């Protein structure tokens, strides 16, 4: 076995053991670095949004320099070119509407109207193709351009995915590193609330047309399970990435959470788990009031990620049955000193990681503001102090 292959196996074992709530040789390190990677490698945001090779290169530089167990693939998830091909109205990109080093922007709106519920529930895919896409894209003004734009967009997507698959192989072979997750999906309430109805829309629906909202959420359960398995290409070793948005405190009151947010999210997670697919429950913001409910999930079916949730309570309520991750504050990585970061990580190791089932990570996605020396302190502390 080559050295890199051995390293790969060691890291993967460490990661999987922790996710199974076991005690590996040391605390694994996963770092959700996004734009940080681009800045570290010296690329502008326009370069990583528009050039897949540079997007991929940004990760190379970091994994060459640092000994981490896993980092998410390249920093940009949404490539500008694909969206330009169809004329996406809901996104703005660096070098087009924005300066060349500005982060992309999403324009939230009620792209789906309350009147659309019936058609959506009847056949969501058809509704998306015939109603939503034309609303969202300038190229859909006439059928001729619409067809061409879909072909261009799809071809671009396939090319990008191919490059990513190649990069994945190279990362494994040359650096002995694997991605922290495979596949992605959402809570049905977020599918509707983030992109389709918008926050104002979905909040009003809970008051004004709750039955339609519930029916639409139900329709999304199978879809979101399927989407997760399909984007993971069937892999069940790594967890699926699920960024959770509108279920954090204080969006919904407890009754609304129990009625609208939780039942369908639970079904998606359980459905994935039946396929052997674990979910990285990326709980953005504060989820403290809902921990007891989350504990209803089957053992080990999620990795519960802590951003602003009370870590002590999370450990108390979920520890032992689910792996926990995260919680190093993003502001500490930006404004703190390496000593402070190191102390924080030690505390996490002593109090949370002590009996296994823990992965070191920042609370939120790490942007360009984090100091390199603080990221280094986080890694070095875990490498030394995190040995079991």
């Amino acid at each position, binding site marked *: 076995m080559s050295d890199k292959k051995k390293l790969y196996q060691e890291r993967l074992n460490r990661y999987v053991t922790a996710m199974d709530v076991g005690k590996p040789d040391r605390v694994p390190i996963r770092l959700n670095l996004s734009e940080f990677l681009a800045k570290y490698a010296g690329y502008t945001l326009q370069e990583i949004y528009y050039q897949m090779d540079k997007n991929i290169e940004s990760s190379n530089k970091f994994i060459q320099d640092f000994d981490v167990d896993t980092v998410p693939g390249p920093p940009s998830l949404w490539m500008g070119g694909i969206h330009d091909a169809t004329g996406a109205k809901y996104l703005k990109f660096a070098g087009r509407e924005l300066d060349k080093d500005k*982060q992309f922007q999403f324009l939230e709106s009620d792209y789906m109207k309350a009147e659309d519920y019936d058609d959506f529930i009847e056949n969501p895919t058809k509704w998306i193709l015939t109603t939503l896409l034309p609303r969202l894209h300038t190229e859909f003004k006439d059928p001729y351009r619409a067809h061409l734009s879909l072909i261009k967009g799809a071809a671009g997507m396939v090319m990008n995915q191919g490059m990513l698959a190649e990069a994945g192989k190279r990362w494994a072979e040359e650096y002995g590193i694997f991605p922290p997750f495979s596949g992605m999906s959402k809570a049905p309430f977020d599918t509707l609330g983030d992109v389709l109805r918008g926050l104002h829309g979905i*909040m009003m629906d809970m008051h004004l047309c709750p039955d339609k909202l519930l029916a639409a959420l139900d329709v999304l359960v199978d879809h979101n399970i399927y989407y997760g398995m399909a984007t993971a290409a069937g892999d069940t070793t790594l967890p699926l990435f699920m960024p959770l948005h509108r279920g954090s405190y204080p969006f919904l*009151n407890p009754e609304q959470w129990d009625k609208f947010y939780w039942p369908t999210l639970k079904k998606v997670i359980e459905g994935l788990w039946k396929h052997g697919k674990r979910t990285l429950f990326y709980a953005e913001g504060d989820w403290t009031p809902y921990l007891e409910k989350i504990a209803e999930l089957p053992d080990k079916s999620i990795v519960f990620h802590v951003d602003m949730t009370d870590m002590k309570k999370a450990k108390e309520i979920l520890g032992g049955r689910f792996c926990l991750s995260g919680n190093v504050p993003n502001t500490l990585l930006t404004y703190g000193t390496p000593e402070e970061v190191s102390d924080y990580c030690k505390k996490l190791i002593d109090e949370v990681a002590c009996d296994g089932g823990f992965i070191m990570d920042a609370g939120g996605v790490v942007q360009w503001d984090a100091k390199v020396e603080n990221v280094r302190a986080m890694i070095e502390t875990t490498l030394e102090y995190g040995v079991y």
Partner: protein
Amino acid sequence: MANQIDGLKDALVGLDMNKVLDKVKAGLDAGVDPMDMVKDLQAGMVEIGDRFARGEYFLSELIMSGEIMKQAMALLEPKLAGVDQEYKGNIVIGTVQGDIHDLGKNIVAMLLKGAGYNVIDLGVDVPAEKFIDAVKENQAPLLAMSVLLTGCQDPMRDIIKAVRDAGLDVKVLIGGNYVDEKVKEYCGADYFGTTADDGVKVAKEVFGA
């Protein structure tokens, strides 16, 4: 005369949209001073903000109350024409350049309006010049900025510096999920807030009302 609008505030606090709108219509029919109704509704919004601060109300209730308020004001505003609305003062608000998160900012703005301030909302991705122009134009004593992305905190510092360099006599309040004392100091703001009702608290202090 006032009995037409008895319970107007409570109906708003109870999020009973039909009751609020019925009462406003009945009040207008009976010739109740629209300004009195606005004051009752504002008192209701303050109560709603307090309940939010106590953890009894959530965003969903804030958004619902905002919608009821909007519809009630749509009935009242035509009757308010010519009447000088007595605002407690002008506040400029916006999400800083590079950041498009606006759900929190909208709620802060809503509660400030509800509490009787004139809020000039500049939207999202707002550059320094736009903040400066708006503060000048409205002679606003308070500038409130929202920032969710840590990556936009440094640009916010530049904006605050530009505001100070422009020699404006304005207090700066910043807020967002990852904002704390450290961020406030780093950016050179006067106040910081992490929940929507912090906005109202600071406004009370700045305007003394």
